[in-house]
Each structure stands twice: as C-alpha cells, then as structure tokens.
C-alpha cells in the first residue's frame, strides 16, 4: 500500500493536533480561500512586525479552517515554518513548497528549508490532492502580500 507514503505520521500528527489554529488579534490582513472542487475553506490572518534590519517579520499567522487531513496538516506545518521568519525568507520557503507540490513526486526536497513540510512530497504524486496541500500556503501568501502592500506600516 502506498497510503503511508501520502499519509506520513508527521502529517497525521499535525492533522490531529494542529499548531497555531484559531483566529487571533491583532492582524494586518485577513483572507478567505476556498477550494471550489470540494468546498474546503480557510480564513487566515497574518500579523507582521518590523524586524531589526527594517524588513517585515511574520509575527503571527492564525487561521480557522475546514478540510481534509492534507489541507489541515499542511496549514499547521506552514505556520510552524513561517512564524518568526522575515517575510522574504518565508516567501522563499513558500515557493520551495509550491515547487515540491508541482514535482509529481520527483523532487528531492530541501529538508533544511522545508523541515516537516518534506513529508508532503508523497502528496505531489496525487494531482487531485495538490490543491489541498496548497490551500493554507496560498492563503498565507495572499494575506502576507496584502499586509506588505498596505500603506507600508511595516517598512
């Protein structure tokens, strides 16, 4: 069975005990994303702060979501990876994750960069599930881009 290659223990752990879940204040941007094929949805908030060198840093990411194990676990892993990182670095991680998801199971993921998110490599072999894995990430990217472009209060 290949089920275990998709549903790695790390994924199931994050699914059962999601990190950083729940909507919190304060926040700089809030977005609502939906996967129109299955109706899975996420409401996600991003709060940024000014870092030491003037670059915005991801202070907090909070979210409320309904969805399958892959989408729930992926959002949880994402928050672990981006919270506390400078926005630019977090965007790079997000790009690397997107690349991994588009790899059709052929990529060698960068474990230093992606940490727990490498567990999703197996998901990239199932085209129907890639959107699930990306739902939280795309919402975060959207919210962060909006927060950054909003009047430059963090630059």
């Amino acid at each position, binding site marked *: 069975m290949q089920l275990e290659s998709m*549903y790695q223990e790390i994924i199931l752990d994050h699914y059962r005990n999601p990190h950083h879940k729940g909507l919190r204040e304060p926040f700089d941007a809030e977005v609502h994303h939906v996967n129109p094929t299955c109706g899975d949805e996420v409401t996600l908030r991003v709060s940024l702060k000014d870092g030491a060198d003037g670059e915005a840093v991801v202070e907090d990411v909070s979210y409320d979501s309904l969805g*399958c194990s892959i989408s729930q676990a992926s959002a949880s892993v994402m928050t672990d990876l981006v919270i506390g990182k400078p926005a630019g670095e977090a965007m790079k991680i997000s790009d690397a994750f997107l690349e991994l998801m588009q790899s059709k199971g052929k990529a060698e993921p960068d474990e230093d960069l992606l940490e727990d998110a490498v567990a999703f490599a197996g998901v990239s072999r199932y085209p129907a599930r890639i959107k699930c894995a990306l739902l939280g990430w795309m919402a975060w990217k959207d919210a962060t881009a909006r927060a950054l472009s909003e009047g430059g209060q963090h630059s």
Partner: protein
Amino acid sequence: MTFDVEVIRKDFPALNRLVRNGKPLVYLDSGATSQKPASVLDAEREFYERHNGAAHRGSHLLSEEGTEIYEGARATVAGFIGADENEVVFTKAATESVNLVAYALTSSVKAGDEILISEMEHHANLVPWQQLAQRTGATLKWFTVTPEGRLDIDTSLITERTKIVALTGQSNVTGAVPPIAEVTRLAHQAGALVLVDGAQLVPHHPVDVKALDVDFLVFSGHKMLGPLGLGVLYGKYAALEALPPFLTGGDMIEVVRMEGSTFQPPPMRFETGVPPAPEAAGLAAAIDYLGGLGMENVAAHERALTARALDALREIKGVRVLGPDTTADRGGAVAFDVDGVHPHDVSQVLDELGIAVRAGHHCAWPLHRALGVQASTRATFYVYNSREEVDALADGIRYAQKFFGA
C-alpha cells in the same frame, strides 16, 4: 431476461483494467460519468472509419451516410424517451441544454416574474437560472430540502407569476426522486413551463416524456454509457418553437442576408456547426445496449444494489447516509459522511483499494449546506456493478475509519 452482471461486465473494456496496487477496478462513480461498452466504442470507430463526412453538408456519399446516422440517432433518442424526432435537440451536454433554455427564455421573462428551482439542484440546473433572474430582474425562488434530503414541495411557491419551474429528476447526491408529475401538473395549472434535469434520471429509469408531461427534459449521453460531448434537450414541439435560437451560425439558418437572417424550425434551430455525428452514433449504440437490458431491469438492479448499500452503511458506526434511507423514490446515488474522516481522505483510502468514488460537494453546494455537511463521499451504481462491489465499499469505509483512528 436474466440480468447477469458478470456477463455485462465483459462488455466494458475499462472494467478489466487493474488500478492502484494491482487491484481490480471497482467503479462506483457512474454518476459522474459512466463506463462505455465496446459496442459504443465500435460505433464511433466505425463512423470514423467508414462514414466520416460532415453531416447535413455536401451531397457526397459519406456526408449522406453521416447525416443518416446522425438523424437515425435522433430517432433512437426520441424512441427511448417517448418523444417525437423533431422534439430532440442535440447539445454538448445537460449543462448546455439548461443554458440553452435559460438564455432563450431571456426575452420572455421580465421583472416581477418568478423562476422556481430547488435547493437540491446540481449547479448545472441552478446557476443558469440565477443568471436568468439577474438578466431579467425576475425573482429566483426555491423549494427547500427536508433533513431526510427530500424536497419540501411548498405549493404556495407556485403562483401565477411563476414562469418556469426547473427541477432535478433525481438528485445526484441523495438519490431522491421528487414528485415530478405532480409538480408539473401544478406548474401547468399556474401557466408555468417545467424543465426537468434528467441527467441522473434518464440513465437509470424508464422515462416517458408524454406521461411526465414536462415541457423540457435535459440529459447527458456520457452518464448513460454514451460518449462524452453529446447531450440532449427534449422539448415539446410547441415549447421549442416558442424559443428563439441560442447558439447561432451555420446549419441553423434558413436564409442569411447581410441585413439579417431567418432560422430553421426546431430542432435544427438550436444546432449549429458540423454535427457531432460519431458521438450520436455512440449514443444510439448506448441506448440500444440499455434497451437490450430493459430499463425496468436496470432500475431494479440498481434498486437492489442501493438497498444493499443502505443496509451495509447503516451498520457502520459513525457513518451517516445523506438523504432517504430506504429505496422508495430514491435512485442509486449514495452519499455519506464518515464521522472524523474527511471525504477526501475516505476517497483516497478507497482509491488505494481500487474503489473509485467521488468526494466533495458534487456540484451541489447548497444541498450540502442544507444537509449540514461541508462535503461528502458518494458512491453511484450502474448496470455493471455487483453486490460484491457494494460489500467492498463497506469494507473500504471501515478500513478508512481504522486508518484514521476514527
């Protein structure tokens, strides 16, 4: 006749293949699209190999043969649903058929009129009516759904302002079969037209449009063993004749001048471009196949499978079937919720076992909302499904519960 699934299965090449982990395919997604018997594939292939000329065009032999096959298919479809040949319009699919009617009605619907649909509709029989209401200023109204997934037929919604009632003939989620003939009678008394979405009805039950008395019936060939790309709009001749054209261009015209054009009578008024004759040949072969089985037998077979599935699922703790839990006025679409396991995860585990089902809202988002679930897993049955496959589904659900510790 005897309805022998093992014999039937041999006619469907796709059912012979192995899927993930070398498992045989258990195809429980015919509600989305059905598999095709070899006779349908042969009919299409033979068209291309022998008769491939543009139907309705040219006077050479191939074009003539193409025309004959295409028009012959129209007669076959008409016979299958008890219509006259000139009441059958070929479209791309059920979705296009609904859009055709909804657009063509634009100039006869005005602000203050009412369009009546239901909460149970597939988006294909919902969004086009929302759009018609928006274009015309008409009001969209709908029958709601009871907790059992039946339609609450509130007859006070049918008034003299109602222009058209558009209802599903069988829900693609709960399998519920609304009382179409009764609603049609009430709608006609109020002077309204009736369109029935037969996408899940026509493939699975004997249908006689004259007995139902509906004005329009739409369905898709690909859900009834036929090829993708061909659908049907049945309309009473007078109802079709009252409609202006929808898609315009070649074939549907009578005379074209630079200043303006006149149009053919139905059904040609609604068909433009080179006709999809190979698909029509395929659909005719599919109808011949279903006719050979007998639609009463098809319906009885599916009823037995549905009863078995309802019994099996009732026994699994944490599983809730959406919709009626008996086979009365209910077809073979069985959608369910597994407590603690998301439909995507249920279907992924089933896929790993070779069982193809559908997960999501099945293009019926308002219905899922009404039933209090975000999404569901759905198994649908057809002529080639066996009792063993129903049992495999139940075992697979238990396995998914175990896998996710639910």
